[in-house]
C-alpha cells in the first residue's frame, strides 16, 4: 500500500474564485467544498494550483511539479480548452514519450507476502472486511508448515542483496503466536544464508500483546501497527470484544511497554475512519502524545455488509479534518517539532520524488496475501475471495491470473480514472474497495492530494531540509 493512494485529503480556502491553498488558520471553518472544487478534474494532462498567490503546474505524466507565472498559466488554460495542449507542452520541453504507457507490469518479482496466520479474531468489529477475522469461513489457524513454505517462497525467490517484507495479519495474528515466531526466525535464517534482508511487520488489534511480544518485535525490528479507532469512547463503540465490552483500556495497557521500548521496532496507530469517529485532530494529538511512531487514517469505504461506511457527506467532513491535521503538521515542521501524521508525511515524500505509477499498490504484483490454507491472493484483503485468487503455495503463483489482473487493473483501463489528473498518484483506488463498492471517494482523494501538493510547495520553500532525508530510509517520513 502506498501513501498517496490510500489515505486522505485536505483543502484550502478560495479567493477570487481560484483556489488559494494558504495554510488554514482556523481549520474548523475550512470549506471542504471549495477544495473539492479547486481539485475537480479539468484536464487529463495537468492540474493547476494556486498557492500563496503563486501559480503552479502539476504535469500528470511523471508527477512533475513546476512553479509557473500567470502568463504561462493562461496559455496552459487556453491550450487545454482549444485542444492544443500537447503542442504547447512540446514547446515547453515537457512533451516526449509518456513515462507511463498502457503496458501492464508482467510477471513481477515477489517482494512481500502477508500471512493470514489466524483466520479468527477475539474482537467483534461491526465493519470488519474479514467477517470478524474468518473471511466467511470456519475460523482456523495457519499450520506451521504453511507459514514456513510461504517464507521459503518469499526469501528463496529474492535476489542476493534484495529486500523482502514478511507481514503477519489476520484475523488477529497473535492468536497464532508460535507460528509468527517460528516463521520470523526461519525467515531470518534463510535470509542470512542467501544475503537477503527481511523486513517484518504485524498488524494487530493489540488485545493479546504481551511484554514478551514487545521483546520479540524489538529483537526483529518489527513495524507494529495497532488498529485503534480513536480515544476510548469512539474506539470502544467501533472495536468491542465479541461480548460487547470495550477493548481500548486493555489495548493501551498492553502496548504501553512497547511504546517505551521501541528502538528498532516502530509502533504505529492506524485509525479506520467511519462516520462515528470523525474528530481526527484530537485523535491524532492524543496518539502522538502517547508516543506512537506514526499515526495514519484511512476511511472505511467498503466494510462488511456496508456497516459504518463513509458516504459523501462524511468524506467531506473527513477532508476538513484531514486538512486540519495537515495544518497542525505544517506548523510543527515550521517549528522543528516532530509530528508524525503518516498520511501527509508519506504523501510529501512521494510528491518530492515525483512518484508515479499505474497501480494504487503492489497488490497482485510484488505483494500477495497467503490464506491459512496456503492459497495466494492479491493482498491480505482478498484472502478467500475468488476475485483476487492468485494460485497457491503448493502450485505456485498462477501467472495467467496474475498477469490478467495486472492487465485489467492498470489505471489506464479504469473509469473515470483515465481522464483524472490524480491517476498516477492515486493509482485508481484500493482494488478491494473499488471492486466491492466502486469509486466513491474521488472528490476526497483529489481534494486531499491538492492539499498535499500545496503543503509540499509551502514546506519545500520554507523547510527544504525536511525533504533531504535519504530516499532509501525505510521510514523517512517519521524522522523529525
Amino acid at each position, binding site marked *: 500500500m502506498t501513501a498517496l493512494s490510500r489515505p486522505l485529503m485536505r483543502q484550502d480556502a478560495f479567493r477570487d474564485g481560484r483556489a488559494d491553498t494558504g495554510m488554514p488558520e482556523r481549520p474548523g471553518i475550512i470549506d471542504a467544498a471549495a477544495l473539492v472544487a479547486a481539485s475537480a478534474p479539468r484536464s487529463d494532462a495537468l492540474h493547476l494550483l494556486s498557492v500563496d498567490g503563486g501559480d*503552479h503546474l502539476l504535469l500528470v505524466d511523471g*508527477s*512533475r511539479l513546476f512553479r509557473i507565472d500567470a*502568463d*504561462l498559466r493562461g496559455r496552459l488554460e487556453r491550450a487545454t480548452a482549444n485542444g492544443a495542449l500537447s503542442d504547447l507542452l512540446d514547446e515547453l*520541453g515537457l512533451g*516526449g514519450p509518456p513515462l507511463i504507457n498502457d503496458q501492464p507490469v508482467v510477471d513481477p518479482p515477489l517482494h512481500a507476502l502477508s500471512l493470514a496466520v489466524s483466520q479468527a479474531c477475539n474482537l467483534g468489529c461491526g465493519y470488519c472486511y474479514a467477517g470478524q477475522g474468518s473471511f466467511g469461513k470456519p475460523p482456523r489457524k495457519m499450520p506451521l508448515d504453511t507459514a514456513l513454505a510461504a517464507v521459503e517462497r518469499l526469501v528463496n525467490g529474492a535476489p542476493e542483496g534484495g529486500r523482502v517484507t514478511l507481514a503477519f495479519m489476520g484475523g488477529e495474528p497473535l492468536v497464532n503466536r508460535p507460528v509468527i515466531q517460528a516463521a520470523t526466525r526461519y525467515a531470518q535464517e534463510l535470509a542470512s544464508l542467501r544475503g537477503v534482508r527481511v523486513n517484518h511487520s504485524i498488524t494487530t488489534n493489540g488485545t493479546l500483546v504481551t511484554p514478551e511480544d514487545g521483546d520479540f518485535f524489538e529483537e526483529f525490528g518489527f513495524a507494529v501497527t495497532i488498529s485503534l479507532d480513536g480515544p476510548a469512547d469512539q474506539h470502544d463503540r467501533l472495536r468491542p470484544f465479541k461480548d460487547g465490552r470495550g477493548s481500548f483500556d486493555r489495548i493501551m495497557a498492553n502496548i504501553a511497554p512497547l511504546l517505551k521500548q521501541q528502538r528498532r521496532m516502530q509502533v504505529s496507530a492506524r485509525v479506520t475512519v467511519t462516520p462515528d469517529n470523525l474528530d481526527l485532530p484530537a485523535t491524532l494529538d492524543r496518539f502522538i502524545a502517547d508516543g506512537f511512531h506514526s499515526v495514519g487514517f484511512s476511511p472505511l469505504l467498503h466494510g462488511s455488509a456496508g456497516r459504518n461506511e463513509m458516504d459523501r457527506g462524511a468524506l467531506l467532513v473527513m477532508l476538513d479534518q484531514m486538512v486540519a491535521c495537515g495544518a497542525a503538521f505544517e506548523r510543527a515542521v515550521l517549528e522543528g517539532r516532530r509530528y508524525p501524521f503518516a498520511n501527509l508525511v508519506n504523501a510529501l515524500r512521494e510528491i518530492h*520524488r515525483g512518484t508515479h505509477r499505474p497501480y494504487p499498490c503492489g497488490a497482485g504484483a510484488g505483494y500477495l496475501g497467503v490464506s491459512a490454507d496456503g492459497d495466494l491472493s492479491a493482498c491480505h484483503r482478498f484472502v478467500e475471495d475468488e476475485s483476487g485468487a492468485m494460485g497457491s503455495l503448493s502450485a505456485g503463483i498462477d501467472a495467467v491470473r496474475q498477469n490478467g489482473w495486472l492487465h485489467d487493473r492498470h489505471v489506464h483501463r479504469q473509469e473515470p480514472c483515465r481522464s483524472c489528473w490524480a491517476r498516477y498518484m492515486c493509482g485508481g483506488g484500493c482494488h478491494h474497495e473499488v471492486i466491492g463498492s466502486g469509486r466513491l471517494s474521488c472528490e476526497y482523494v483529489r481534494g486531499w492530494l491538492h492539499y498535499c501538493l500545496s503543503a*509540499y510547495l509551502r514546506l519545500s520553500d520554507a523547510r527544504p531540509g525536511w525533504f533531504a532525508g535519504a530516499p532509501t530510509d525505510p521510514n523517512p517520513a517519521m524522522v523529525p
Partner: protein
Amino acid sequence: MSDQNKRPTVLDPRNLSAQLHYRPAGNPPPATLDTTIGNTCPGLEFDFRAAWRTLLTGITLLEHDNLVIAAEPAYAALKGRRLLRVDGKPVITKVIGPSTDLTTTELLTSEDYPEGVITMEWSNGFTDVLRKVGQPVACEFTACPRPNQPEDERISYEQAVKDKNIQTIRLQVRPFFTKDTAAIEPATVPAGVMTQGLCSPWQNDYRECVCYYWASSRPDFVNVDVTPTGEVRGDNWMQRDRSGQYVIDNYTDSRMITYDELFQKWEELLKFQLAGRDAPDSIPLPFPKDPA
C-alpha cells in the same frame, strides 16, 4: 521564451521528477537520463567517466584507469601514482575468467595487465564513496613506482601491501548532485565536461567509435535480408555499393566511404535509415546544403 511578449517563461521545476525529466528547448529527445543511450565507453549523449575523474578534491584521475594524471599544488606528489582503495573499498580488481583453451578458470593477464589487475568502472568503484559527500575519506595510493616499474604498470593491492608501497591520504568527496536536487553539481562537473569526449554521430565524428556501439541510433548493418536458406545478407553502413555483401571495415578497403568523405559530404553519402533500410534518395533534405 513566451512568443507573445518575449519575457522569459517561468517554468521552475520544484520536485525531483520535474528536475530529472526536464528537456530544455532545443535539446533532442534522447537528451534526458531516461531516454539517453548513454553508456561508459565513451557514451553517446553523456560520458559519465568524465564526471568521476575529479570526484576527489585535489586530484584528477584518468577516466578509465586508476592513474592520477594531474594534481593541485598541494597534492603534486600524487601525480603519476595509482589509486588503490578509497574508504577501505578497492577501486581495482583482478580479472578471472576462462583460460584460452577453455579448460580451466584462471587469472587473465596481458602485456598491459601483467598482474591481471584492472580498474573498475568508476561508477562502480565510487558507489559507496558517493554516500560520503563533503567528508574526507582515506585514499590509498601507491607510494612510489617500484624500481624498474613502468609508470603505467598496474599492480595489485596485495602486491602494493607486500612491497610496503602504499601511502594513505585523506581527500574530500565532492558532491555529484547539487544538494537536495537531482541536478548534477556544476562545481564538480562543469558544463560540457560530460559531452566533451563523445563519439556521437551528431557531434562530428561518424567513424571513430570503432566498436560501433551507437548502432541503435545509426545502424551499422543495414538493408538486411534473410534468405530462404537462413543466410543473413546486408550492407556495412559505410560501403559504397549496396551489394548485400557485407564489407568488413579495415580502414583501408576502397569499397568503403573514406573518413575524409564522411566529414566533407556526409549528407550526400549517408542515407537515412527507415526500418533498417536505406531511405530513397528522393526524400529531400530538410535544410539547404551548406555551401562551405
